[in-house]
């Protein structure tokens, strides 16, 4: 049985020489940081600790000759061997030398620069019983000897301890974080406590020494992190009480780690259970000595909150200084990911920033060519070029000082595309502003000199042309065609659209030009036929029309006005000059706030966004009423001015302003994607949200235009194959393997997991890849609409390429998805999921709720039961789903795919207690079994009757709950066996003999002490059994049927890295190799020969 991959909590991350080393399960993964792309590339993986111990810490030796990985009672030292012929000084880790197991938990390891005489290396190991041991390695390089042990005079059990960097053993200091809310500082010379850092109100969860050893950083249960100055305590000769010099309060759950990221500035990063990283600059804080001060100073000190992790929290942070002086922060999450964050902003610039600003440049109006580019950070310009892949997460920010002379000012700015803007001014001038190919400057070309001021502008793109429509003060519309390639003005048409001074806005979309005129009138012209107005429409509420959307396919026009009213018109009017109103909604947005943007989606579904921070979806009833489908409110109450759709035509993003911030949200992910801070008194002008996650944003401050471009999906994160691997970050209750099609050569396995966090996830496993990267392509299939907890999933095979996934969980909600395998042009296989049945959750407001990956779902009466286990089988080619619940109900349902609902088939009545597990055996007649918390196993013959009574009941098969069940065939055609595993640690094999339509019990095999804890899951093929238990072991057993009983004998076992295993799934390959996946806290894959 060999382990192939483990995905789970990253308990630690640290830097060893130039590499990032992360501890995942019992292994260490070595990454190279690509600084430009801010990506981690896995280059090496090593087994570090035996006995299933998890790596809780990594520490590089001071001279860079080795690093230690430690956790539980164990320490392993890896020598960093130089790779010959590598000019960049590359190294690789050796196989590692394990020290003998310690008597207590290892909390920290430090290399001592001066090794003990006669030894080549000396390390100090800090242990949870508040002691430190010195271990030295002999010349033979394999053996470690304990050469000293010092116990602190104050004995207690610690959750955390840190050792200081020290050239000598005698100079080593210890910071011990106790559960009595203080930190004890003691030296290894005498073990006497020299100082107590007092002030925390909860147990200490992490302590660290600062780089200069004068400072100690701590993180605690009381939701704060603190900084302490301990520079002089060792000399005092008595035990001193040290107050904190900074209190960082703001996390909304326990804090797990605190590091200093500032060079000269006192900037710290903390991370914790609330899945955020918070960045603090305490230079503005005064007197943060108490918790109250810390809370009061939060606004001044907390300069950024970084989000991106999910699940149970972020365990550890580490600072990476790159060779060119950039600094990064790495965070290790319970979700199995290591994320890299750029910290230059906070450590280098003076002001606070909220994103990564890699470059800021300045250019100017053409007449004043002496304006210099102030490129703050001379980043690789090629990265900024138009050819740059949009996935690159980069930001550029540039400022153009403008119009140095006279009274000309900018009225309108429109972004045509990346690197091209159109600017119109009060002088009636239209400029085309283009970025030079080097990306250094912007070039201004005057395209038009109009007599009157330009009031409004709209830009539409065709394949070769930018079509710029302008509305001027005189009521004249000008349409200018500009070649995209040369930037030349090709053609210009002007016509009077209205009386002077009443033409307010011009829109151009889908080949039409619209003019919004005072009094809520909208006029439309078709392109090329500007002589004749195509139609007009009138807003019945008579307010100024601010936004418009049209759909040619649906023949609809949607307009939103300044006071939040919404109107839909029928555009299918052959010759009618005025469009017919189809539907209207008064005050569609709250408090008569303006509707700034709208869209029509297929359906039709109308999307509007308004000043009231809401993005609403409306549907049209047959009686011409607009019904609110759902409402999304921007979490920071921004005025939403822009929405964008993704490639599938679904609503993807919304953007708007809040105070001086420009904020972009991802609606599908329900989170903020980015925030751009604008200077005070600046005016936002335009934003372009492109498909490739690139956002271009222009705002004007006085005479300067600021053009900000961001590639960004997650704020300030970089993700690639290795770092983007993530999982739920919570307990995984259930796992299933989706086999690839038989003819798909080299196709990966699909893995489906369901978790406590209420999501169903998918990943791929590719055995042929390099160790450390075999599991890849994570994604959410859906969020369980019942709320928390997906307890069970089951996979039903339709054909080689198609499977139906059923997932059950809280509130008795059962979901169905179709998973379809397909290969892309390059021949790589992946499966896609399509929702089939999404039962409807209850929404307090009674409106349909948007659920990620599921779409809109109808409300449904809430059930108190929770689905505990799910099994699928086929009856006459139809899918049947058998599930059990926490109230002991066992039911069979089938899928009505057309109506997208479940239809009840049978009710299986026996259990009076929660039914924990079910399994099905298909055949001529279909048999099922179910197990309850009272240790009873019921056997059922599934024949589609409405009500089914058990065919046989095995009373008290187990002393306590039957957690695991597997029903399988044997060589005997007239019998089958039921393999069960209980809370009572017993493995039981029961033969059932068929007897007409009924069954009767046959031989029994039991193995009482199969595991040392509750069994959780079993799998069997009739000859072998694989079982797992909370004792974190996976065992294999053989079944042999003797004359009178069944003999169950252990044949092998292994410790899994996934703590608290809950479920297993096995896939047998034709060559007899079994692939086993074990899921608990994380999941691990094994190959069994």
């Amino acid at each position, binding site marked *: 049985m060999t382990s192939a991959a483990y995905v789970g909590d990253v*308990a630690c991350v640290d830097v060893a020489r130039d590499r990032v080393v992360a501890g995942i399960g*019992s292994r260490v993964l070595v990454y190279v940081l690509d600084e430009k792309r801010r990506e981690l590339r896995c280059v090496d993986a090593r087994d570090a600790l*035996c*006995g*299933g*111990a*998890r790596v*809780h810490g990594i520490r590089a030796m001071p001279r860079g000759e080795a690093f230690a990985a430690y*956790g*539980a009672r164990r320490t392993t030292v890896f020598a960093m061997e130089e790779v010959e012929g590598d000019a960049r000084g590359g190294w690789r880790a050796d196989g590692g030398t*394990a020290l*003998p*197991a310690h*008597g207590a938990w290892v909390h920290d390891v430090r290399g001592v620069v001066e090794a003990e005489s006669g030894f080549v290396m000396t390390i100090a190991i800090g242990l949870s*019983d508040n002691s430190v041991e010195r271990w030295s390695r002999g010349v033979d390089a394999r053996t470690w000897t304990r050469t000293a042990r010092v116990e602190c005079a104050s*004995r*207690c059990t610690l*959750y955390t301890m840190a050792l200081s960097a020290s050239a000598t053993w005698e100079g080593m200091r210890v910071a011990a974080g*106790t*559960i009595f809310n203080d930190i004890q500082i003691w030296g290894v010379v005498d073990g006497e406590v020299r100082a107590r850092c007092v002030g925390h*109100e*909860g*147990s200490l969860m992490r302590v660290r020494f600062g780089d200069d050893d004068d400072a100690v950083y701590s993180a605690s*249960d*009381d*939701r*704060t992190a603190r900084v302490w100055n301990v520079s002089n305590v060792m000399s005092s000769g008595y035990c001193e009480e040290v107050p904190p010099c900074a209190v960082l*309060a703001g996390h909304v759950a326990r804090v797990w780690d605190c590091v200093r990221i500032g060079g000269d500035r006192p900037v710290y990063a903390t991370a914790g*259970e609330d899945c955020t990283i918070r960045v603090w600059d305490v230079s503005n804080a005064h007197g943060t000595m108490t*918790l109250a001060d810390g*809370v009061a100073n939060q606004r001044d000190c907390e300069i950024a909150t970084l989000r991106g992790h999910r699940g*149970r*929290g972020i365990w550890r942070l580490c600072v990476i200084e790159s060779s060119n002086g950039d600094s990064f922060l790495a965070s290790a999450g319970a979700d199995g990911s290591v994320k890299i964050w750029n910290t230059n902003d906070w450590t280098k610039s003076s002001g606070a920033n909220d994103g990564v600003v890699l470059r800021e440049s300045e250019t100017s109006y053409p007449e004043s060519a002496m304006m210099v580019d102030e490129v703050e950070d001379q980043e690789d310009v090629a990265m900024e070029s138009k050819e740059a892949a949009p996935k690159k997460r980069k930001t550029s920010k540039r400022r153009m000082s403008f119009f140095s002379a006279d009274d000309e000012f900018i009225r309108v700015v429109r972004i045509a595309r990346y690197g091209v803007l159109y600017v119109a001014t009060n002088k009636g001038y239209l400029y085309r502003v283009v970025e030079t190919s080097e990306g250094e400057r912007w070039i201004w070309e005057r395209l038009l000199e109009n007599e009157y001021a330009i009031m409004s502008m709209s830009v539409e793109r065709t394949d070769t042309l930018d079509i710029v429509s302008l509305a001027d003060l005189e009521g004249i519309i000008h349409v200018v065609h500009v070649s995209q390639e040369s930037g030349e003005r090709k053609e210009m048409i002007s016509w009077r659209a209205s009386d002077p001074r009443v033409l307010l806005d011009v829109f151009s979309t889908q080949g039409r030009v619209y003019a919004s005129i005072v009094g809520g009138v909208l006029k439309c012209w078709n392109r090329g036929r500007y002589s004749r107005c195509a139609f007009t429409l009138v807003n019945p509420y008579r307010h100024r029309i601010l936004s418009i959307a049209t759909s040619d396919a649906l023949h609809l026009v949607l307009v939103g006005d300044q006071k939040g009213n919404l109107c839909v018109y029928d555009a299918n009017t052959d010759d009618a000059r005025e469009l017919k109103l189809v539907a209207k909604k008064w005050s569609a947005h709250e408090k008569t706030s303006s509707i700034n943007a709208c869209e029509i989606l297929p359906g039709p579904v109308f999307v509007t966004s308004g000043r009231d921070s809401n993005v609403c979806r409306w549907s049209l009833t047959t009686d011409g009423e607009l019904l609110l489908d759902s409402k999304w409110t921007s979490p920071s109450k921004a005025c939403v001015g822009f929405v964008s759709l993704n490639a599938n035509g679904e609503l993807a993003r919304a953007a708007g302003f809040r105070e001086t911030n420009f904020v972009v949200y991802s609606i599908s992910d329900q989170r903020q994607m980015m925030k751009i801070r604008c200077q005070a008194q600046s005016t936002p002008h335009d934003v372009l949200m492109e498909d490739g996650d690139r956002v271009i944003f222009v705002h004007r401050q006085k005479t300067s235009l600021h053009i900000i471009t961001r590639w960004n999906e997650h704020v300030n994160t970089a993700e690639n194959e290795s770092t983007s691997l993530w999982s739920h970050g919570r307990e995984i209750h259930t796992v299933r393997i989706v086999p690839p099609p038989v003819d798909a050569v080299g196709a990966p396995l699909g893995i489906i997991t369901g978790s406590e966090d209420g999501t169903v996830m998918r990943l791929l496993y590719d055995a042929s890849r390099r160790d450390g990267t075999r599991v890849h392509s994570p994604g959410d299939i859906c969020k369980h609409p019942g709320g928390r907890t997906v307890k069970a999933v089951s996979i039903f095979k339709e054909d080689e390429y198609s499977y139906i996934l059923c997932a059950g969980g809280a509130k008795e909600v059962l979901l169905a998805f179709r998973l379809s395998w397909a290969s892309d042009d390059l021949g790589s296989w992946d499966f896609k999921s399509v929702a089939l049945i999404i039962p409807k959750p209850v929404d307090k407001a009674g409106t349909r709720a948007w659920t990620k990956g599921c779409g809109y779902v109808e409300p449904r009466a809430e059930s*108190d039961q929770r689905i505990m286990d799910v099994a699928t089988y086929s009856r006459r080619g139809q899918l049947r789903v058998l599930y059990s619940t*926490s*109230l*002991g109900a066992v039911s069979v349902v089938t899928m009505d795919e057309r109506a997208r609902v479940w239809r009840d088939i049978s009710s299986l009545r026996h259990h009076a207690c929660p039914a924990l597990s079910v399994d099905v055996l298909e055949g001529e007649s279909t048999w099922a079994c179910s197990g309850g*918390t009272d*240790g009873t196993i019921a056997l059922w013959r599934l024949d589609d009757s409405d009500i089914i009574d058990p065919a046989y009941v095995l009373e008290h098969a187990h*002393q*306590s709950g039957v957690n695991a069940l597997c029903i399988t065939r044997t060589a005997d055609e007239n019998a089958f066996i039921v393999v069960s595993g209980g*809370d*009572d*640690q*017993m493995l039981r094999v029961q033969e059932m003999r068929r007897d007409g339509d009924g069954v009767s019990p046959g031989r029994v095999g039991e193995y*009482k*002490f199969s595991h*040392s804890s*509750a069994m959780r899951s079993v799998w069997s093929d009739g000859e072998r059994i694989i079982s797992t238990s*909370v*004792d*974190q*072991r996976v*065992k294999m057993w053989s079944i042999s049927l003797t004359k009178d009983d069944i003999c169950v004998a*252990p044949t*092998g*076992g292994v*410790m899994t890295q996934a703590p*608290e295993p809950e479920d297993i799934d096995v896939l047998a390959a034709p060559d007899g190799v079994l692939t086993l996946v074990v899921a608990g*806290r994380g999941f691990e894959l094994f190959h069994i020969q």
Partner: protein
Amino acid sequence: MDGRVNADVASRRLERSLAMGKSSKDKRDIYYRKAKEEGWRARSAFKLLQIDESFDIFRGVKHAVDLCAAPGSWSQVLSRKLYLPAVRAGVSESELPKIVAIDLQPMAPIEGVTTIQGDITSLDKVLEVLSHFDGKQADLIVGDGAPDVTGLHDLDEFMQAQLILAGLTVATHILKPGGTFIAKIFRGKDVSLLYSQLKIFFPDVTCAKPKSSRNSKAFIVCRGYAPPEGFEPHHLTRILEARATSHTAGGEDGTVGTMSWPNNVLVPFLACGDLSGYDADQSYALDDTKTRLGPVQPPTTPAYKSAIELLKRK
């Protein structure tokens, strides 16, 4: 080890979740509701009662100790099972059973229970217990404490084991030979080591799973305290460490204890409580005629209490 594990601070975190508020849990949890109706401070009272049903742990007990007692539901059980029946039977003052509860947290008084506020790992406090027993040794030591759960599963299990070993340290000082020790366990990865350590001192060790206990929780019932010949309490650390070393030594290949078990770690399992009775994992419909009951004892203070209050005030 001489056991400086600070169980009591840890225990209060556990009780944070168990101490009962007035919430919708009423609807879901039968034992929670029953506990309030019967005046228990926490639902865990039923666990001890059900362990007693199977093991008859209170027979002949004159001196009992509750470790990490707050909020005190197990002390309540000791009081109602030992002290109150004796009072009703008219036993003379000097002959009444003596019960001592220790916790770092202050605890509301319980009839017949002497509470000591202190750290169970401090030898002084342990010896203070003996003074309440007039120098006699304890017949029964119980402990329902659990450490702070960090979410790092292996660390949590380690800390729980340290807590039990701290309880064992107390036992080696004050438990009468033949006495009983009951503690909560996590049946995790290294539970077999804990079993084998306890088996050095108790010939009869059973893993008990009360019916009122949720699926993962269990208790270790150690009976017939019989320390090795010539044992002195200060030997304890060395003995435990030696066992830990020998236990893990065999597992350098990662297969520790995966296959066959040595006899000293074979601990039988026993489900306690009436199997036909209520099920802790099941929800029972709430009888609407019943009024909602307030908590018997309000929850203890969490570490972040002041942080939350300050933030709210802001």
